[in-house]
């Protein structure tokens, strides 16, 4: 992997390099920080919105993310990934919020059922994301299924599939091994698929 090259491949995805991603970041510069907010505010909010129960909480936490980032912006190491940094702050704040509301992070069972293991992997033309998401009932079921998922699975699913973060970036953001990232991702996708399967097939 060459950090000077514009893109690199991790698994099936193409990522921006840290140097490109951080091009506009100049520690201590207000203009640079403002640009960073413009770039990441909706993405951080999208993540936080699905991690906490209410939109109001999500707005508060997203503000807190940028406030925390601002407070330590002078000490920010421009060689590190901004995205990883921001999502790490966001994740930690979501965990704190969950603890305060006495919910805590749910334990994740990593047992994989034999059904999943033996599933025949065939293309299914009924899975058309854009068409499915136009259906309000489907959207509602999907949101509910994501909401019911444990924070541990949900965070990995959103960071990888929604935010296009690599396994390595997620591992850094959530302070977990890459193997754990992969297994959580697998379980999260499987759980979600089971939750909406009947709607897709019918």
């Amino acid at each position, binding site marked *: 992997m060459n950090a000077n090259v514009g893109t690199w491949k991790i698994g099936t995805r193409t990522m921006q390099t840290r140097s490109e991603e951080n091009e506009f970041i100049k520690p201590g510069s207000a203009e640079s920080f403002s640009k960073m907010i413009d770039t990441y505010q909706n993405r951080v909010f*999208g993540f936080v919105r699905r991690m906490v129960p209410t939109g109001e909480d999500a707005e508060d936490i997203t503000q807190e993310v940028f406030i925390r980032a601002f407070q330590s912006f002078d000490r920010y190491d421009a060689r590190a990934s901004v995205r990883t940094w921001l999502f790490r702050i966001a994740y930690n704040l979501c965990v704190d919020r969950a603890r305060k509301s006495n919910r805590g992070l749910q334990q994740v069972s990593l047992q994989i059922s034999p059904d999943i293991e033996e599933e025949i992997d065939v293309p299914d033309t009924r899975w058309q994301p854009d068409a499915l998401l136009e259906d309000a009932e489907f959207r509602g079921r999907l949101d509910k299924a994501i909401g019911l998922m444990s924070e541990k699975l949900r965070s990995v699913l959103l960071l990888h599939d929604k935010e296009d973060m690599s396994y390595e970036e997620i591992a850094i953001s959530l302070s977990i091994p890459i193997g754990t990232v*992969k297994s959580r991702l697998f379980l999260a*996708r499987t759980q979600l698929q089971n939750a909406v399967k009947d709607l897709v097939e019918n």
Partner: protein
Amino acid sequence: MNLFKKEELIDESKLNSASQMRVASLIKSMPEEDLSLSWRSELNVKLMEIQNAKSKRKSTKRFFAFGSSLSAAVAVAGYALFMSNANSIVAPVGKIDSSGFAFELVRTHQESLVALSVSGTSSAARESAPADELMDGQDELL
């Protein structure tokens, strides 16, 4: 079951299977949620408050640093002034014409002061004695 061992069993091919990728594309297609301009304004106000508080703390620190160095300078100056005044009490010779009567008077006084300080006798007592004698003399005149 060893959870970590199980975690390691998930390999890339499983994650890239059609069923897994279907869910991935579904998540990717979920609508974005935008924040309002008022949210951003509110954030800007909070950041400005933090910035102002930071600047205030810095200027307070600077003020105290300046204040302490100023008081140190005043103290040094005061000490220097005190020392020069103390020296002038003992050695006013430079300001007086060295050939005149005053010079001789001061020199004699200084020599007596040195002699007294060597012998350990209080200069104040010695200095007050001639005044008492003078007063006695005045009483006699009256």
